[in-house]
């Protein structure tokens, strides 16, 4: 880089450019927050769903699963598990409930979390709520 492009020009690009894009980002964030009520299924955010999110977090489910594609890639996507399980809350509940405590020889297995009935219902409702968020048609198919 020769003398035409000076250090102070580079500095101005840094400060000016960064500030400009920070402001645009904040503006887009503001707009997003105003428009997401149409997409984020907040009408379904009952106390039970909120509790379900806590159960989800307290057991570190994201440490194996993805939710809307984010998380670990060790176990299936759960953002559409409700649809994958034929919209059966009971099937999801039973799956979590009856995991063998000692695992399955040679295979990956979900731990037995010893959740109470009330916690099970809550986490299932949380997954149902998650499955109805408008994700722009992601994932590509039911397998997640």
């Amino acid at each position, binding site marked *: *880089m020769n003398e035409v492009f*000076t*250090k102070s020009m*580079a*500095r101005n*690009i*840094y400060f000016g*450019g*960064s500030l400009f*894009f*920070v402001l*645009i*980002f904040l503006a*887009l964030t503001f*707009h*997003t*927050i105003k428009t*997401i009520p149409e*997409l*984020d*299924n907040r009408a379904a*955010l009952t106390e039970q*769903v*909120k509790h379900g*999110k*806590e159960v*989800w*977090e*307290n*057991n*570190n*489910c*994201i*440490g*194996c699963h*993805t939710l809307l*594609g*984010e998380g*670990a*890639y*060790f*176990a*299936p996507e759960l953002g559409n598990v409700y649809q994958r399980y034929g919209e059966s809350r009971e099937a999801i509940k039973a799956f979590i409930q009856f995991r063998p*405590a000692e695992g*399955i020889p*040679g*295979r990956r*297995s979900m*731990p*037995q979390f010893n959740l109470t009935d009330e916690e099970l219902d809550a986490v299932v409702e949380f997954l149902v*709520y*998650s499955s109805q*968020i408008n*994700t*722009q048609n*992601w994932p*590509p*198919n*039911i*397998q997640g």
Partner: protein
Amino acid sequence: MKYESQAVAKLYFLAALGLFLGQIIFGLIMGLQYVWGDFLFPLIPFNTARMVHTNLLIVWLLFGFMGSAYYLIPEESQRELYSVKLAKLLFWVFLVAGALTIVGYLLMPYARLAEVTGNAYFPTMGREFLEMPTITKVGIVIVALGFIFNVGMTVLMGRKTVVSVILLTGLVGLALLFLFSFYNPSNLVLDKYFWWWVVHLWVEGVWELIMASLLAYVLIKTTGVDREVVDKWLYLIVAMALITGILGTGHHYFWIGTPNYWQWVGSVFSALEPIPFFLMTIFAFNMVNKRRRDHPNKAAVLWAMGTAVVAFLGAGVWGFLHTLAPINYYTHGTQITAAHGHLAFYGAYVMIVLTIISYAWPHLKGHGDANDERSQVMEMWSFWLMSVSMVFITLFLTGAGILQIWLQRIDGQTFMAVQEKLAVFYWMREAAGLVFVAGLILYLVAMFTAKKPALEEAS
């Protein structure tokens, strides 16, 4: 070493290297669990191993960044560190808090850890990479504030250089953005939206400032190129990092319940995110070509050029591969993401910290500018072992990812059925992981057995 207070960096580097080794051991455990499903089950389930792997990474990199700052800020500021005592105190606070957290992960079920740390009162746990208890997060904030105060006072009271100011900006940004880890709304979309303000704006934002300034520092020291030239490059690199990286956050807002214009914003700006990394590569090679001296620490120069190249490959090229929305629609949440994550973190952040340690170590040990030839040769072997094996880990995971997309996302087979078909890739990844750990051990041996160069070597 010109200033005595720089010696405090050694503590930080030692902790960083120790935790790095721990991180890799847990990486090997997870890699094995991918193909040997009940390995260590239910003692260390996969989610625990992963949490330890990723959190150790974050903690040791933070130790590395702090150590780097303590090492270079006195030299840049041309004065002793504001308070060595504070630096030592914060070191022990951070190490004990970090160790207790990891022990907590390993000794009890996560739900129990959430209970004993009172997560119900201020729930922040159970989100990817931010799994640490709320109390640990508070500890991180306290350490970060004390650290920034210490380094900031040193900068303010001494000479201000572009390197130190940009490093400080990056560190302040790191601390401020971490505050979003305390925001955990019940609304999943909002939760995810602002979770990325920590995760993305760290690694594809302010951490790039830290990386670029550390790289610039090592290049100034090892090549003797004029600061005016380096400063200009540095401004341009960090400008491009923020100009592309801030709106590049949009590539995480494609499928999480956010408006669809993010597909355009995210695709366009994140497609430009390789630019700052490409500039760093040109910068590093240019400076080394224009060098005014042949620095005796050849290993450090190798690391400096390596970090620029591998960061460009991992963050730049592998990021670009799956960043356009129509492609990301298929790759999102597959092994492709894991492939990119590994090479990007290794190239950009692991390697830059190893670069600084490599440069600073002989000074900290009182060996002068460089370690003895034998130690440097070992270190360069460790460079190649780690870097090449990480490239292979990335290639195997990319292979696994492509096959996963084909079988699961296009053919519609179930997740678990597909995972079994990917086993051969996972085995090869694990083998590459063993080579990586061998490289890391060699690095540690090189560092801990390093001697002062013999007289004729030093000249």
